[in-house]
């Protein structure tokens, strides 16, 4: 199973900045191993962010997002104690969801 994400969600006024680190290889499918064999593509394709259960952002990613991806966005109206959840799904169908409380 995939390793956990790190989600930081910090409120300032009526805005909450969310910073996410995801644990993923993000293999492009264009690299070769030492034996010259192509390493198959393996990358996060879809990312969803929710605020107290309501979807606020969806994203489609390609393999050129860096390994162990970083994502930052700002949620309007979120306040301390609210829940921010992030879900990713990769091209092999693996998925992972983690949740953080706004501080």
């Amino acid at each position, binding site marked *: 199973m995939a390793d*956990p*994400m*790190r989600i930081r969600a910090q409120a300032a006024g009526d805005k909450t900045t969310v*910073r996410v680190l995801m*644990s993923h*290889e993000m293999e492009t499918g264009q690299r070769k191993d030492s034996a010259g064999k192509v390493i198959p593509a393996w990358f996060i394709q879809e990312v969803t962010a929710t605020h107290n259960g309501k979807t606020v952002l969806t994203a489609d990613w390609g393999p050129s997002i860096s*390994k*162990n991806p970083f994502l*930052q966005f700002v949620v309007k109206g979120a306040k301390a104690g609210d829940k921010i959840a992030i879900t990713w799904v990769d091209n092999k169908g693996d998925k992972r969801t983690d949740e953080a409380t706004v501080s």
Partner: protein
Amino acid sequence: MRTRTLIGLATLALCTGAQAQKSTADGIAEYRKMLEDGNPAELFEAKGEALWSQKRGPKNASLEKCDLGQGPGVVKGAFVTLPRYFPDTQRVQDLESRLVTCMATLQGFDAAEIAKTPFGRGEMANVTALATWIAASSRGMRFNLPQGNAAERESYEVGKRAFFYRGGTHDFSCASCHGEEGKRIRLQDLPNLTKNPGDGIGFAAWPAYRVSNGQMWSMQLRLNDCFRQQRFPYPGFGSEVTIALATYMGVNAKGAESIAPAIKRRRRCK
């Protein structure tokens, strides 16, 4: 030293059009600053923290009773006092070899088997994650390795000799690159590790996340790759020389602030 104020990502969004011409050094400093917020080392920290309290291994036990030198279970402050002498094993141990001892005695893992595992795989990857979290728990603290025990003083003396030991096809020692002030390999600044090189530099920066390959590098792996580039044979994981070198660098770094786990941006030598 550069005194120019670094621009954060958010501010940058407002003033892209008005950016003046910057020097290469300023440009690179700006790039480094951008990467500091959101160091993927945090992912390994989180993994290590979870592993510490998780019941695992043949004995289905956690590591919460592991003694890193500050008493059983005490994590904060341990990193900046390692390597040190441990009475139970009767040897000086660095963080990683001590973790393997705890995994063997508390959880029932085979220590020799872990030591043989390549970096980044299996239980060795878990040792690195644990070391990352334990290092992070001492972030901002200053190095202060104990030297009260004769074995600790001997470790320092062995480490010093290993640091200057020339060998291999190229006659290199650690000191060939890290024995003088203000030297570089290509564009890479080389810390002088025969003294305190400053806060967060050299010994005080590892474990570190390397953006070039997206890997978390522990001090044992850092030393391993130094020896590879020195054209030496392969140092055993947790071997006497690697621990003695860590003692030498750690004692020399007395007073330096730990920033580990750091983020390193360099490409590897080709």
